[in-house]
């Protein structure tokens, strides 16, 4: 019995951490945030050298074929560094969709290029976890797409993975006729999302698509988003503790004030069990299919709450400095805010958790 990360997973985490520490510090993140033409290519190609986009790609398609837990370990690191990268869309959602719903030829055509970092796939599937306004995409018999997808992840990708109203997947080139993306300015500046209108664009259906498979892709996505929040939350706690140990008021470090200590203890007390929950949820995706969906829901919804609490509390520990742009703490705050809503907000996800158990 071993509940925890393996030695290899520890090394994976270290190698991604080290790369991001050296190559994607907050200054680099700020540049991405300020420059809409910056796709963070240097970051993604560096991550590709470490095998990050290849993690979930089977070896037969040039990948490493690791588990959801390995992907969660990487997501923790990306969250901890508030890294702009198409990990969720390309390396997780698109890879899962191709593995589950693609046919042999489709897998062979796309997966190797994802694995080596040369192909980016944006994810237009927000409607799977809740259609807002009249968003939704219809796929016609002639293979064309019609409608609008909201909150499309990583719109500066080469291809979009689109979930239609019947929960079937399609791939469409981002520069195809009849595809019109509009960037949606939003609070988390480490991620980009867009509204994409489809007016008869020709698409390629993933041949084995079926509605249940689409939900499995969402399950995985939710665990990865929860892991991102886990990493971001831990980082905010670490920053709060470090700041409290050097900031002085009333002739003593504020870390010696019990009010401050208790805020930090409360964050730690929320984060520790969350870590076990996220790891288990990731493990369940591969190894405990009966529990996979419920655990994915729990991880997503619980980390949304913990992330909100830690975001607020760690900011308060920093005082006015926490509220400024100088320190950049808000990058993590906003990242966790984004994670809370995307792929289903906590109330919705809890309702799904109830349904999975036959309670709703």
């Amino acid at each position, binding site marked *: 019995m071993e509940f*925890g990360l393996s030695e290899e997973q520890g090394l994976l985490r270290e190698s991604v951490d080290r790369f991001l520490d050296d190559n994607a510090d907050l200054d680099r993140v700020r540049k991405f945030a300020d420059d809409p033409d910056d796709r963070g290519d240097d970051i993604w190609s560096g991550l590709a050298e470490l095998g990050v986009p290849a993690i979930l790609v089977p070896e037969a398609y040039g990948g490493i074929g690791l588990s959801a837990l390995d992907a969660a370990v990487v997501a923790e690191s990306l969250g901890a560094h508030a890294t702009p990268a198409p990990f969720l869309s390309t390396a997780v959602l698109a890879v899962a969709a191709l593995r589950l719903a693609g046919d042999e030829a489709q897998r062979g055509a796309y997966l190797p290029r994802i694995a080596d970092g040369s192909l980016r796939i944006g994810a237009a599937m927000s409607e799977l976890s809740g259609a807002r306004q009249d968003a939704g995409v219809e796929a016609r018999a002639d293979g064309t797409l019609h409608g609008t997808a909201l909150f499309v992840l990583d719109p500066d990708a080469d291809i979009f993975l689109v979930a239609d109203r019947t929960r079937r997947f399609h791939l469409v080139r981002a520069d195809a006729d009849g595809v019109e993306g509009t960037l949606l300015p939003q609070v988390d500046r480490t991620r980009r999302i867009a509204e994409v209108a489809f007016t008869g664009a020709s698409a390629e259906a993933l041949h084995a698509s079926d509605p249940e498979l689409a939900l499995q892709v969402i399950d995985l996505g939710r665990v990865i988003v929860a892991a991102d929040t886990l990493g971001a939350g831990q980082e905010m706690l670490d920053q709060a503790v470090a700041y409290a140990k050097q900031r002085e008021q009333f002739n003593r470090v504020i870390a*010696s004030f019990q009010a401050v*200590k208790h805020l930090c*203890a409360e964050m*730690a007390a929320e984060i520790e*069990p969350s870590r076990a929950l996220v790891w288990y949820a990731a493990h369940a995706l591969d190894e405990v299919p009966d529990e996979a969906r419920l655990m994915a*829901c729990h991880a997503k919804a*619980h980390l949304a709450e913990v992330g909100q609490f830690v975001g607020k509390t760690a900011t308060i520990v920093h005082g006015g400095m926490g509220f400024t742009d100088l320190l950049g703490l808000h990058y993590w705050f906003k990242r966790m805010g984004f994670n809370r809503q995307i792929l289903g907000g906590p109330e919705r996800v809890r*309702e799904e958790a109830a349904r999975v158990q036959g309670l709703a």
Partner: protein
Amino acid sequence: MDLSYGPQYDAFREEVRDFIGKHRDQAPKGQGIRSEAVRNWQKLLIQHGYAARTIPAEYGGHGGEPDILKARIIGEEFAAAQVPGGLGSQGISMLVPTLLELGTEEQKRQFIPPTLAGEMVWCQGYSEPNAGSDLASLRTSAVLDGDEWVINGSKIWTSTAHLADWIFCLVRTEPDAPKHQGISFLLFRMDTPGIEIRPLVDMTMAGNFKEVFFTDVRVPKEQIVGSRGEGWYVANAILGHERDTLGDPNAALTRLNRLVELMKTETVDGQRAIDNPAFRDRLIKIQARVTAMRFNDLRVLSSRLNDGSTDTGLARMITKLQATELRHDLEGLGIDVMGEFGLMYGKGPHLRDQGSWQNHYMYFLGLIIGGGTSQIQKNIISERGLGMPREPKAVIPAEH
């Protein structure tokens, strides 16, 4: 991540299930700790290695090899079957481990066997009216007079004092030493002349804890664990054991399942509580917390199993705080879904689950306070877990 226990453990689990199936009729049904039913059940469990598993047979235990996984399986199976496990009294969960570690051979032989058998019941005399969270400032004194300690002072919140045969008690023996170094750990009979027990009613309206007064209580000199002045360290060995037993995730899970059943049967205006989205949302929130604590526990367990190869210090430190707060919230939801029926208490009509929701709701508030309050837990987490400095000492006396 490898969550299988292995085939030998699957077989062991079957054994435990088998045992429970065969013997569950003999399990006590709410009789008190002094009842024969409880003692017989305890004896049977020790015989089969389901209680006092790893305590040497010469001290009345089962004499089994230490095996964390087996211990866990036993806990899981008894909880799942809703059958009481071995006795978890303060004597067994706190004193016995301490004696095993720090007692003399004679003390082990004298005290451990009857304690395990449930024949010798103990109470814990630590807290005093002026020494709660700041336990080390306790004042009950013991002065050596010939071959005897003479004890004067009082203890408070002493659980089961009225049922106990013996007390393990912290007393000040070195009044001139720094406060942590002036304490000794004494064992003595509760029927020693000079001991007076006064009732204290707690908010559940039960009289489980008491005030205990000592006037010239004479105790043989050798009834001390560790040396003079070492009592604080002896007691701390025990506190570690206590924290470990408070956060039982199996119990929380059993209770959560019960809550789901309750929500399926309670109705308001003909609507079941489970069909009310607001209640359902609260239920799932709590379910996620219970789930997270279960895996937190598994993570800590696994680290102990693998010789602490991974650092789970923080995961362990947060357990008492989180588990007690969680149970209080869970029991509170049980009351809320019943609405006015949730108020029913004592013996009367409309009680659900024998009034246990109100009872546990209050009981767990007691556990949030007892054994180191939530605030003290946060001090520990921030200081020992996060390396934040201690509060500088300032003496601000009370207003009179």
